[in-house]
């Protein structure tokens, strides 16, 4: 049970990370926001890769 819940958390993280990346790709004007999107992606990517 515990492992299944943990797997869900990776799915949720992947989902949110995908949304953020989608936004990053759609952003047309502000470089400011581009950088922030990438900063937010940092912990999510490393968590998904099971590095930290």
């Amino acid at each position, binding site marked *: 049970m*515990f492992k299944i*819940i*943990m797997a869900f*958390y990776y799915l949720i993280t992947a989902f949110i990370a995908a949304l953020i990346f989608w936004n*990053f*790709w759609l952003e*047309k004007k502000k*470089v400011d926001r*581009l*950088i922030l999107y*990438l900063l937010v*992606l*940092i912990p999510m*990517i*490393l*968590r998904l*890769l*099971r*590095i*930290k």
Partner: protein
Amino acid sequence: MIRIKIVLLIILVIILTISGFQLYHHRHYQIPIVAGPGVTRVLKLSHYLPSLKGSMADTWVFFLEGQEPGGKVLILGNTHANEPEGLLTALVIIENGQVEKGTVIIIPQFNHSASRFTRPGDGYPLFFEIPTSWGKKKFRMGNREASPLDQWPDPDVYIHYPERQLLSFLDARNVNRTWPGRPNGLPMEQVTFAAMELIRQERVDLVIDIHGAETMFPVTNCIVAPEKSAKLATMVSLTVKAMEKFDNHVEPSPPKFRGLSHREIGDYSEAMPFLLEAPIPFLDQPTGPKTERLLLDGRDPFLLRLARKKKLFVPYDETGWPMDKRVGQHLSVTLELLKQYSRRTPDRAIVIHNVPRYAEVVEHGVGYYFVNPSTVSPDKIYFN
């Protein structure tokens, strides 16, 4: 715009690669532990709870058994993996100790997952090195809580089993709050449950849980003991003060604070628990940069000023609180606990030799007692 995005993505990849490699290296770095001449058996903790097998929460258990039967002691290091004096104390005993009577059981990295997790937001170094006669021995600097890679998510509040006391959500990953644990609970509850099983099945008499505590924390430089262990702890405290000239007062274990080793082990088994605290200035909030040096020598200008204003709970001067002193205190107190217990209960005596005491460790440094892994046969080396 596309060009900017690609440049930014490349920068991201570079940052992730560099830091990711460093963090991956930390999580997967192996510390060699040499099973010394006294080690007779080595098990994994999952021996006592098979569901732990193969997980990062599983950890080595070293047995040092004497020729003569006697009592049994369990020594826990790195319950909090950011208080490395526990690990070092355990390793000195594993690599040097020789047991004549009774059994010494040692779990050097009790929260194994936490030892492979760096603390976010607190700027710790990834590793620290102890100088030895044959070079430097490198250790991972861990965290107080287990890694979310091994236990995720946290509850919104941690409800202690079985007393239902509410504890911080962080404490669900803190193995000094999850005692006595349960077999089908969260991984850290399983770790403490496995240890309880060990204590009950092996009929352990004494459990010594080795920690470090901030100099601004009132419960530091002391032995925490519940009522059933208080007399032994007090005798030890008096003895080390008179014989070895260092302070280590006794703090009663609060009866209403659940989940701690010094409370639950005593309540849920026959064993007498003791929790040893030595001051670790590195963990204090008001310190300079969190460097490896501060971790090892415990010298800090802010703490020195606070000491002059009488805001610390331990004596503190320019010499700081070096690691050698902390490990030395822990070794002396541990040996003295065994000695006093053996004197009172001769049929359950535990006699161990070749483990240095306070003055020796302060004189030679703790690194002096670590064996060069390249000089022993590979089957004596356990990677943790």
